[in-house]
């Protein structure tokens, strides 16, 4: 009984520890003024009203949404067929895909930005300063999560037998993939899409180093607001946080 009490306390402690910054920011975004007191002086919605009427914020938010959704569509079109081909035709390539993915973790975004800035500043592909370079970079961020999720799904299926059965029933490889394999990996794919979406929406390093305010995204906007009122920036932080919260909630519902 005492042990059970201890474990509950530890878990409660963890939740409390993690929620302090979130709750404080939330309260701050609703408060008129908060000085050296335990609680703020008064509550207000003004910061949110100002924020959601700021055209610059709305544009940046729109840019972030557009780039994230475009990246995920693009990634799905490229990664899903590739993962299927790996598992159906070349199962041994899975190991090499794993190594390619590991490279993404060993090279932080700051490092690849160094190369990207030199290669695409001018020359045949002048992508720096345009949203296109971000779509390419975000593809490399989403790839590990999407490929892993698809690989887990495909490993659980008996791809070869399912395809053979579909062929036997007269389906072409394409329609067998579309109507047999895809519905079976849809859940994992959707969950990984929503997960990647929540990363991409707030991505800062690539957005700031490669594009900056030439195509301002949410995190770059937030950064440029650092010298304004803390109440205002906390309204930005909470709006972003609540949005990603909704998205991850959908992701966890889908992965059940």
């Amino acid at each position, binding site marked *: 009984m005492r042990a059970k009490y201890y474990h509950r306390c530890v878990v409660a402690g963890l939740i409390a520890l993690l929620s302090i*910054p979130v709750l404080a920011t939330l309260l701050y975004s609703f408060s008129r003024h908060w000085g050296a007191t335990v609680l703020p002086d008064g509550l207000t919605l003004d910061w949110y009203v100002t924020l959601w009427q700021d055209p610059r914020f709305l544009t940046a938010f729109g840019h972030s949404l557009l780039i994230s959704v475009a990246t995920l569509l693009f990634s799905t079109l490229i990664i899903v067929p590739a993962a299927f081909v790996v598992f159906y035709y070349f199962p041994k390539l899975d190991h090499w895909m794993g190594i390619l993915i590991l490279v993404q973790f060993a090279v932080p975004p*700051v490092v690849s930005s*160094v190369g990207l800035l030199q290669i695409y500043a001018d020359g045949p592909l002048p992508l720096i300063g345009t949203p296109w370079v971000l779509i390419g970079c975000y593809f490399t961020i989403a790839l590990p999560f999407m490929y892993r999720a698809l690989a887990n799904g495909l490993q659980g299926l008996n791809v070869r037998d399912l395809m053979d059965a579909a062929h036997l029933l007269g389906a072409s490889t394409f329609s067998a993939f579309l109507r047999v394999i895809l519905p079976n990996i849809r859940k994992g794919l959707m969950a990984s899409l929503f997960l990647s979406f929540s990363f991409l929406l707030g991505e800062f390093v690539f957005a700031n180093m490669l594009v900056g305010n030439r195509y301002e995204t949410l995190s770059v906007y937030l950064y440029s607001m650092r010298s304004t009122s803390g109440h205002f920036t906390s309204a930005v932080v909470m709006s972003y946080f609540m949005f990603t919260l909704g998205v991850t909630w959908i992701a966890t519902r889908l992965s059940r």
Partner: protein
Amino acid sequence: MRSSSNALAAPVSVRMVRIPRFRHWRAALLLLPLLLVLMLFSLVPTLWVLINSVKVDGLWSAGHFVEILGSPFYRQAFGNSLWISVWSSFTGLLIALVSAASLKRVDGSLRDMTVAFTNMASNLSGVPLAFAFIIIMGANGAVTLLLREWGVLGDFSLYSRAGLTLIYTYFQIPLAVLLLYPAFDALDDDWQDSAALLGASRLQYWRLIALPVVMPAVLGTFILLFANAMGAYASAYALMTSNYNLVTIRISSLVAGEIFLEPNLAAALSALLIALLVIMVAVNQLLLNRSYHAR
């Protein structure tokens, strides 16, 4: 693609005989877009960094590495990055270890809720995280003012190594919990009873049985946290722009700063950072192969 319907005629022999790769060349074409985009936006830039790290004014030279290793400024950047990464990973891991052990012992509904909550907390990172900490613990933050009034703050400042370590630790905890808690499923409840029956104390059980079993996961998590912290940039940049000396901050200000752009020096710093991360991953693999699960 008719090749697999041929396979149906003699499924056994097809599976035994190695199918020549060129028979699937059309399917292999579907891999090309992925490789192309990955090359363009990850592999080629990385290669550029590695090649140009050993070039000075267009000639092959290790000059930039000599410069970095001989410069107290860049050595300090590596020192700061390592210090913050090691301490934040270690603290985060310790908190996660205790939490994950307890998480296994609470009711299912509380556990699910905690995992969902941890997942949510892992979304607070980068610039928004730095801003949240500025709001509560910055120079005029509510918590700072409160603690100062109570006289328990001492000389703590968010805009310092200790402050950065605090922020880094915050984003390490949810990551570590999410990575670690599945590993605790490997622990069989009967083992603790058996150990107790044989006269082992709780401490002995943890030291001799439980920890060796979860060790590979703990090591793997530590490496991931460490790599994550070494490569982190957004939080520190949002907190102090380029005013704090970290490797990632130095790299970015050498290619995107306002004065003195030196991409090749940035490349050399990057190459050292990559080397450090690769060594950590390699050591981890080596330790993994020698641990409990490999036997």
